[in-house]
């Protein structure tokens, strides 16, 4: 896979990637400020989540 990507496997032994679910949520729902996701304001969850 590394060779196919043009990376020398003798130099680099692997690839690691991580993609935050928070960022994905931003893209999906057009959240403009990531802080809204973590602040815990129930109005945010009510707008995007499902009310209990």
């Amino acid at each position, binding site marked *: 896979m590394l060779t196919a990507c043009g990376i020398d496997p003798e130099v680099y032994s692997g690839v690691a990637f991580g*993609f935050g679910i*928070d960022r994905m949520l931003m893209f999906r729902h057009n959240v403009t400020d990531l802080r809204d996701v973590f602040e815990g304001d129930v109005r945010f969850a009510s707008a995007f989540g499902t*009310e209990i």
Partner: protein
Amino acid sequence: MSGPNTDYDPVEVTPLKAEEVERMRDEALAAITGAADLDELKQVRLDHAGDRSPIALANREIGALPPQARKEAGARVGRARGAINKALGERGAVLEEEHEARMLVEESVDVTLPTDRRSRGARHPITTFSERLADIFPAMGWDVAEGPWVEAEWLNFDALNMGADHPARTMQDTFWLEPAEAALVLRTHTSPVQGAHDAVAGAADLRRLPGPRLPHRRGRRDALAGLPPDRGPRRRQGHHHGPPQGHARPHDDGAVRRGHHDPLPSVLLPVHRAVRRDGHGLLRLPRRRLGQLPHLSRRGLDRARRLRRGQPAC
């Protein structure tokens, strides 16, 4: 009680003397005036106008009078009772009015005040989104790995080639558990889970076991580690190797909810994940919502608020 007086002719009966009747009447009127509320007035009515009141007892004594005296005594008592009853009625009306006026003030409700009835909240979009992902990836043949909250320092850092002086190990970025010798941290990322997943012999084969194929659920907030199919110590060449082709499809039509052509905004849904299950109390879908959700199963909607546990029923 006195019957008709035929045997003797008393000239007068004490309770029926004019001054005595007036005294009873005045006492009653004073008590009525003094009654401060409806309860007190009720007691006054019993005491001064009831069956056992002095004026009522006096009325019964009329029969003991000689016939010629009865008429006068009867009229006297009748006037007194009339006055008492009239006063009772008037005082009662006044007190009733006061009572109602006071109730209007004391029991009034300001409908413009903020209510204390609040919704219990909503499932966080991160939660619903991560569960959605945990449906999509297994449908493509990937695993969703779960890991412990508390992880050994070695697995969290050393095994990932993070040096002893790596800044992520500092107190600012990592929660350390006491005692420090235990070398335990609250897992700071998902990579240790990935390592553990790969280290388990045959882990990649687990999902091929027969049985329900709904994915494991988790409420974690961090990134989902991408675990490609057939990755592991015993690498197998299954039909899933290579990058996913095209759109995700579930292994089993019944196991994973299909998306439908007209997805509704999640805010409309009173429930999340229309996956049939058994066990917990189930949420009934309000009839008025049914029209909006033609693809939703009416019965057996999942209402577990936290992590799903137990066997799926479908």
